[in-house]
């Protein structure tokens, strides 16, 4: 019953249409964190100094308009730091750009992204009052607009989730983020928690979520940089076809020994996945699981909301290196030692077959680069791994490459995301130099997100293509042209420089699609296992 395999997420009717004028004036501060904002291997420096972009209001006097924090004394971002000293009376709390709240249907606070839940008890009660007031009238509140702020509600009896945001993200996106927040909670506790409320409406759920602050703060971070959060698709680490096959083969062996799901991951990217017969995994579950998993070896109960929201599975996790990890899911709570043995076996095979070193190589090389977009008809070999062969740093070719800095790909192509509808997978190009900054990348994702919402708008859509100029895209100089193309087989989202010619852009998109097709064996996980998505 849970084997949801929707290629296309059904949205509620859209109440707000993205008109392309996103006046997002953000001031953000760049703070070091453990969360590598995946800015691709485009620049070699991005691997080490990962930055975290914290949402911060633009009218705070301590933050300059270009996003540089002036008074940066307390700027160290700690995962899970929720500024518990704040409450709804604090100016800093009110200026946070995006709040998330979870409360029970009796108005008791369960979670707040910022501030201390107990101090926000009155605020929480107010939210409950709004929801139940509308409910008493036989209606349901979806969102409220108040000036620049949008208040989005999601009712999952007996739990209420609320987002208050001035990020100008469309209603659908924010609602999806609330769905993810709920899913993350279910992943930690299962939906069985509802029974506690049935037995006792005064039930206090907060203690059950103890120690999970990091999981939630990292989820909110995910909303800003991981396209999986709005595409409902997952992405793979580019690998030579034979390497992925080799990895899949050993995972399959283990799966046959009673493991429900076996997955080899690199950060949030899939290397290979195997499920037991008929067991299927939803991309959203994969995102929540990858977000929950911590470093080092662990064994913990988790629930996959789209698989079975009522019950726990047990996850054995082992990291082979900082980025690469294995997840084995089983229904048995006593399987630790069996899973450990499986892991040892897998590790042996992966080392022998060079899979782990290929993963490292792929991480260093990065994936699709717009600069490498082939000219068709092409005589070049159609493997990503020839194209990206490491070049001599001092070679003449490299100098040629440098001349392109600041330009991006052909016809002003800066970036693209290609989503394969049948595989529920997407591939995203590396960021080219014009969008090397975190803020630009975040804005680009927000623009894609908006585009996604308007493309799937039931009221005015669904559309086939959209070509739009992002006029006041940002307060600063960044302006892009976006092109979106939706067919039965794929969705393409592309960003071009502001002067891009429409005809040329369309031709370039055709080349991108051809390219993706040519290398699909390397960038997508082509299944070959009894997977029903």
């Amino acid at each position, binding site marked *: 019953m849970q084997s949801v395999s929707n290629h296309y997420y059904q949205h509620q009717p859209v109440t707000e249409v993205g008109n392309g004028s996103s006046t997002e004036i953000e001031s953000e501060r760049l703070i070091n964190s453990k969360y590598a904002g995946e800015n691709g291997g485009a620049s070699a420096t991005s691997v080490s100094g990962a930055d975290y972009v914290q949402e911060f209001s633009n009218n705070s006097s301590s933050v300059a308009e270009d996003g540089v924090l002036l008074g940066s004394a307390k700027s160290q971002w700690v995962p899970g730091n929720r500024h518990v000293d704040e409450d709804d009376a604090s100016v800093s709390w009110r200026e946070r750009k995006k709040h998330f709240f979870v409360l029970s249907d009796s108005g*008791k606070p369960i979670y707040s992204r910022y501030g201390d839940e107990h101090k926000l008890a009155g605020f929480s009660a107010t939210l409950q009052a709004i929801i139940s*007031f509308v409910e008493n009238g036989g209606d349901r509140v979806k969102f409220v607009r108040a000036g620049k702020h949008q208040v989005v509600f999601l009712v999952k009896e007996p739990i209420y989730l609320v987002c208050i945001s001035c990020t100008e993200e469309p209603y659908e996106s924010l609602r999806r983020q609330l769905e993810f927040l709920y899913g993350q909670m279910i992943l930690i506790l299962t939906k069985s*928690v509802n029974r506690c409320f049935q037995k006792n*409406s005064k039930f206090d759920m907060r203690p059950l979520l103890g120690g999970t602050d990091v999981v939630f703060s990292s989820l909110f971070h995910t909303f800003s940089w991981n396209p999986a959060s709005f595409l409902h698709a997952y992405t793979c680490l580019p690998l030579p076809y034979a390497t992925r096959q080799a990895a899949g083969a050993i995972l399959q062996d283990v799966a046959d020994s009673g493991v429900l799901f076996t997955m080899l991951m690199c950060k949030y990217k899939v290397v290979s996945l195997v499920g037991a017969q008929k067991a299927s995994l939803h991309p959203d579950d994969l995102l929540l699981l990858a977000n929950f998993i911590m470093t080092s070896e662990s064994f913990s109960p988790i629930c996959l909301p789209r698989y079975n929201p009522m019950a726990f599975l047990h996850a054995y996790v082992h990291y082979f290196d900082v980025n690469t990890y294995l997840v084995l899911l089983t229904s048995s709570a006593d399987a630790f030692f069996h899973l450990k043995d499986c892991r040892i076996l897998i590790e042996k095979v992966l080392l022998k077959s060079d899979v782990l070193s290929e993963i490292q190589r792929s991480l260093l090389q990065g994936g699709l680069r717009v600069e490498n977009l082939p000219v068709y008809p092409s005589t070049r070999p159609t493997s990503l791994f020839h194209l990206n062969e490491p070049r001599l740093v001092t070679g003449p070719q490299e100098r040629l490459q440098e001349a392109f800095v600041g330009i991006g790909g052909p016809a002003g192509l800066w970036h693209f995301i290609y989503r394969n509808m049948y595989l529920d997978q997407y591939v995203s190009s590396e960021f080219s130099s014009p969008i090397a900054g975190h803020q630009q990348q975040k804005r680009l994702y927000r623009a894609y997100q908006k585009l996604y919402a308007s493309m799937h708008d039931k009221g005015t859509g669904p559309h086939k293509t959209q070509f739009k100029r992002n006029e006041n895209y940002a307060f600063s100089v960044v302006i892009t042209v976006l092109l979106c193309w939706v067919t039965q087989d794929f969705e393409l989202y592309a960003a071009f420089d502001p002067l891009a010619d429409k005809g040329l852009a369309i031709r370039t998109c055709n080349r991108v699609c051809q390219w993706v097709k040519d290398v699909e064996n390397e960038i997508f996980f082509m299944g070959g296992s009894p997977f029903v998505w």
Partner: protein
Amino acid sequence: MASRRRMLLKVIILGDSGVGKTSLMNQYVNRKFSNQYKATIGADFLTKEVQFEDRLFTLQIWDTAGQERFQSLGVAFYRGADCCVLVHDVNVMKSFDSLNNWREEFLIQASPADPENFPFVVLGNKVDVDGGNSRVVSEKKAKAWCASKGNIPYFETSAKEGLNVEAAFECIARNALKNEPEEEIYLPDTIDVANARQQKSSGCEC
């Protein structure tokens, strides 16, 4: 096991309009009193942290409107309440007579698991007015009613002078604590793959 953890108590204040519910709450939370009457619209919410017997409590106080047009706040407002405070004005007999209705309405809407022992507190407010000369509800009368409803604690208060307000709310915390349910072990289902895939097995079907 988690007896040391912070508790959040939902406290609902009910009573006829003008008996001083908002003033009591303001006196308690902000230590302020105003002679000006301003009707509460719908409901107001205040938060107060208290320490009691080495434990930290957060009182989430739901100050409701006494006017009849707001009396259909419904199930949602009363749901999950830990304590209910019934307020009357000792100088207005009708406000005392209404207590019965307020109590019954609350029990119907909130439908607590154990209505007999649900913690109520009754406050007779405005004892300061006119030096007590305009008083019509005697302490004896109020106490008799409280006794007949399962020994509800009774306090004579003055929101204006801060009389007994602190003591009344301390009693609220104590009562709610007494009513704290047994800590249960949280046990969700596990999946029995061998038998029926994706069928929940009975981890706890209570």
